[in-house]
């Protein structure tokens, strides 16, 4: 069949095959389960790297199309539901990010107990949803995959979580479902206005080309979709699922959730809300800029007083993800490129953080920084990893956080209006607050005297933990050292959206 000649579809098929493989394993056959999971994750990583190569080759060959590798297959004719695939630079790097995190996540949950088979089943179902979302350019399939990615979260936290897990799982799922209710409304609204001549379509590219959504409808639908995705992107004041959810989630789920799932929010805001409704975006951006601006500073300040490692990172995520949405709303290529870099950076770095926290928690059985100290002495590998993650988070040059934040700040400052400039300068202040809470944790957790004598017997990371964290550390360093490789892939993808915005908003640099 023609559909199978498109590499993109394999990003859904491979996880599904892994699911099937896992289903065939015996419940107790941990060796077989691990083998299948590793094969699945590695295959996804190879596919993702191949996709980057293909993408670069196509672009190098002068293919200037907005989306590459497009294809469309009708699924349900009466409702115009199609499976439309296609990628641009943004989705390519998002797929790459997801593949790396899934790979690291498999190794981080090497010793998953109990029910390892079921855990990996849900884990790969979640991955299917994530990859499916990024390869789709059809509103319906996007929404469908989005839901596929959300639902397993409930079980993953509810069954394998820790602490107040029932409450957290319920809260997370309900809040995100609330968001997708808004999103559903928004998508239906967009669909029914997708064309002026009655040929309704779900295809994002066609809707953008038709540019037929009436302005008053845009003003109604834009907030729906933006808030719908914004909930997932931890936008103030809809972020409170994040601290509780992360605190209760098992390691790999926290990694995948902060590393990839939260990116669905930012990606959706850009791809659906802003791209399809540029008029409303430029009219209403001030509201959401204010909210995301608050997120940045508010999350950072909140992180300063937390004592639970996971809460610190959850609030730090609020701050960093706030920066993603903030940059997208700055409406120029540079800032938006920065937003994608920040998504990559935050994804890898937070996944690394959560992996390390999980490994530390697995040994000490506490996440309270007041009960720990001198870990650098006891587990040097994990300690160094934590410092690297921390330095990436506070924006050390050579690691990913720096390039992302600098691109965002320089891009945001390109806007000439006072409102955006003031917000930009407010946003830059986060680099200091971030340094405060990161160094506070590093000082308390890793340095100083050993607080608890029992901790002296703890061991350092073993091979699978090293593999998992090293993958992430290297990725963080590669982005930080060779940012232009990624910028070249990402940057041109924003030309269409910036052009669309330019009709209503004075975009800098056009």
């Amino acid at each position, binding site marked *: 069949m023609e559909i199978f000649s498109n590499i993109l579809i394999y990003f859904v098929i491979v996880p599904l095959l892994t699911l099937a493989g896992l289903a065939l394993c015996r419940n107790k056959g941990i060796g077989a389960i691990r083998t299948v999971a590793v094969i699945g994750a590695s295959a996804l990583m190879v596919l993702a790297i191949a996709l980057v190569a293909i993408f670069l080759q196509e672009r190098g060959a002068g293919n200037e199309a907005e989306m590459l590798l497009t294809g469309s297959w009708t699924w349900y004719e009466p409702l115009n539901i199609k499976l439309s695939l296609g990628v641009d630079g943004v989705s390519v790097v998002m797929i790459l990010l997801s593949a790396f995190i899934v790979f690291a996540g498999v190794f981080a949950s090497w010793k998953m107990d109990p029910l390892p088979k079921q855990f990996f089943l849900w884990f790969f179902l979640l991955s299917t949803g994530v990859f499916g979302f990024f390869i789709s350019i059809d509103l319906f399939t996007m929404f469908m995959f989005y839901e596929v990615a959300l639902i397993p979260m409930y079980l993953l936290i509810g069954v394998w979580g820790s602490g107040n897990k029932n409450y957290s799982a319920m809260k997370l799922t309900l809040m995100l479902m609330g968001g997708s209710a808004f999103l559903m409304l928004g998508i239906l609204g967009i669909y029914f206005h997708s064309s002026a001549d009655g040929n309704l379509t779900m295809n994002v590219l066609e809707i953008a080309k038709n540019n037929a959504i009436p302005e008053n409808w845009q003003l109604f639908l834009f907030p729906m979709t933006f808030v719908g995705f914004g909930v997932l992107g931890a936008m103030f004041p809809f*972020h409170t699922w994040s601290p509780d959810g992360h605190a209760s989630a098992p390691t790999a789920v926290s990694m995948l959730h902060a590393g990839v799932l939260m990116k669905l929010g930012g990606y959706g805001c850009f791809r659906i809300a802003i791209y399809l409704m540029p008029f409303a975006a430029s009219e209403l951006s001030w509201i959401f800029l204010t909210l995301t601006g608050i997120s940045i500073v508010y999350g950072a300040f909140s992180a300063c007083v937390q004592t639970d490692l996971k809460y610190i990172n959850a609030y730090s995520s609020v701050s960093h993800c706030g920066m993603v949405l903030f940059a997208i709303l700055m409406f120029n290529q540079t800032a938006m490129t920065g937003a994608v870099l920040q998504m990559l950076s935050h994804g890898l770095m937070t996944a690394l953080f959560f992996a390390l926290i999980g490994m530390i928690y697995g040994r000490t059985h506490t996440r309270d920084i007041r009960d720990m100290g001198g870990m650098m002495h006891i587990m040097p590998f994990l300690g160094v990893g934590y410092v690297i993650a921390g330095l990436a988070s506070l924006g050390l040059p050579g690691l990913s956080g720096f390039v992302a934040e*600098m691109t965002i700040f320089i891009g945001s400052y390109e806007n000439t209006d006072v409102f955006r400039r003031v917000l930009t300068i407010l946003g*830059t202040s986060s680099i200091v607050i971030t340094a405060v809470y990161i160094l506070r944790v590093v000082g308390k957790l890793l340095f100083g005297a050993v607080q608890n004598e029992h901790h002296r017997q703890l061991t350092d990371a073993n091979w699978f933990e090293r593999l998992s964290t090293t993958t992430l550390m290297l990725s963080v360093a590669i982005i930080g050292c060779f940012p232009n490789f990624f910028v070249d892939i990402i940057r041109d993808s924003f030309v269409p959206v910036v052009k669309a915005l330019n009709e209503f908003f004075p975009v800098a640099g056009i």
Partner: protein
Amino acid sequence: MSFDFSILVLALPLFMFLFLGLVGVKMGKKITGVVGTIAMGVTLFICYSIALTYFFGTDQKQVIDGVRQSVLAYDWNWLTFTDKLVVKLGILLDPISAMMLIVISTISFLVHLFSLGYMSDEYGKPEKGFQRYYAFLALFTFSMLGLVVATNIFQMFIFFEMVGVSSYLLIGFYYTSPAAIHASKKAFIVTRLADLFFLVGIMVLSYYTNTFDFKELMASPESALSTAHGQTFMGCSVMAWALTFIFIGGAGKSAMYPLHIWLPDAMEGPTPVSALIHAATMVVAGVFLVARLFPLYVLEQGAMNIVLVVGAFTALYAAAIACVQSDIKRALAFSTISQIAYMMTALAVSSNVGEGIHEGGLGYMASMFHLFTHAMFKALLFLCAGAIIHAVHSNENSHMHGLHKYMPITSIAFLIGCLAIAGIPPFAGFFSKDEILVACYEKSPLWGVWMAIVAGMTAFYMFRIYYLIFHWKKHEVKEGHHAPHDMQWTMTLPLIILAVISCVAGFIPFGDFVTVDGKPLETHTNWPVAISSVCIALVGIGLATKMYYKENKLPSQLKSKFNGLWTAAYNRFYMDELYQFITHKIIFQKICKPIAWFDRHIIDGTMNLLADMTTSASFAIRKLQSGSIQSYVLVYFVGAILLAAITMVIVLI
């Protein structure tokens, strides 16, 4: 001759950092140190070749019309922001960067060598974390070299951050000590705050000039500044704001008041590190930054005046504190702050005499000269302090006294350092300080007198430290300890080398090499200024000799007489307490905690309230589905009657 090989000065230290950091643990400790030191020796050799080729090379293109040209050896695109704003990483060689290469590589190499002994115990066994120490030293050297050869302001910012983090790692080297953790954290956060301003300054500057590149900015500073013509913010031109913000960034690294508070605490790090980072190289990054952008600052006198006032005030303020400190390293730290402020002031008084940038560039040249000589003699003083601390295992000068007899080489080296910093001819400090004073007098006699007073105080406090360490009274050897003695050759050799440099560096005809516009600058000794400054220094030394050479009651009498002033200066005029109050009592207690509370109780509370309301509403509604037929029938009939009534009303009306 081409400068293709110059990339090695960055590549080699970076490689050494990765190499020592990754495989150092597997190697023996001693070997790591030796390998690190040899690699640094090679780097030193490369740096000297670059600088010598640059200054004495016979290439025709290097000097055009008597003006020394800058050379762009490398320039790679690293990160694209916009079409015009591209961050490049590269190597720019010009007089000041070539000079800095010499300073950094010399001090860094000597510190590597010195540390072999310093970081070992009495039996020559290396300390725990020896490999880590050498890896971090290599990282710092890489960052600092990258900073001075920066081709654009963004590269400079990148390496500003890098030196900041290497400084953080090295201050916190003894990571089990709470004081070291606290000091490293403080150093990083204070300089980060300054870097925030630096970043905002870069954003403003690059937005209006559309470039990060130093060469483009310097090619015609007037037109670069005029791009923002007429743009003002709160009454000042945006460029003045940008340059002021950039200066704040430099002030953070260079420990200018009020951002100086991190430097004295940074002395918690190993002493060779203090010599390298917190005396000779990183702390002058701010001066280097202002010098690099000097042609822009000259055109924005508003920003320049801020530099002047901050510099002059800091010089006096830090000198006053240095006079009463009892911890030898902290006293040296305040002395460093004061001397860096000297360089800052020299830059700021430069070139506003209306004679054009060349003739007015005396202060600029003097500042760079002082940077060079100061790096040498201050590193010398710190390494001596390191040798002393290694010998007596304490930082407090009350545990020292009378060491001259036990450590003669260290004593003489320290004395040379003191003479150099006090500005006694023919030692290095005399020449550079003298030119700074001349430049200050030319600007205004006020600043000349002001800086001369600081010079007198410098002489006083340095000799106070010297006498308290090496004389004052007989040394009491603590029981169970060896008598202190001079150290092994790896530690004394650096002292001797630096002492020799401190003696002769003043005779370098600096004006021939480093000037603001690349043309050689004729300097003449200004006899009135020279003689008066030497006299002031001698007064300071005499006073110190009277008070501290032999144990006597005078210092304690003076102390009780001026108790208030003495206590205030000893406590650094309570700046640390002020910061502590602001960060802890206000930001932490009044901002962070309420926000966290608000989040948990108001925002999250609203979400929980919604959930609870849903639950209770469904409980309420649940009663309708009671399952009892009687109540269903009752509801049915009541409903039917009501509907009928409503229908009738509607129909009738």
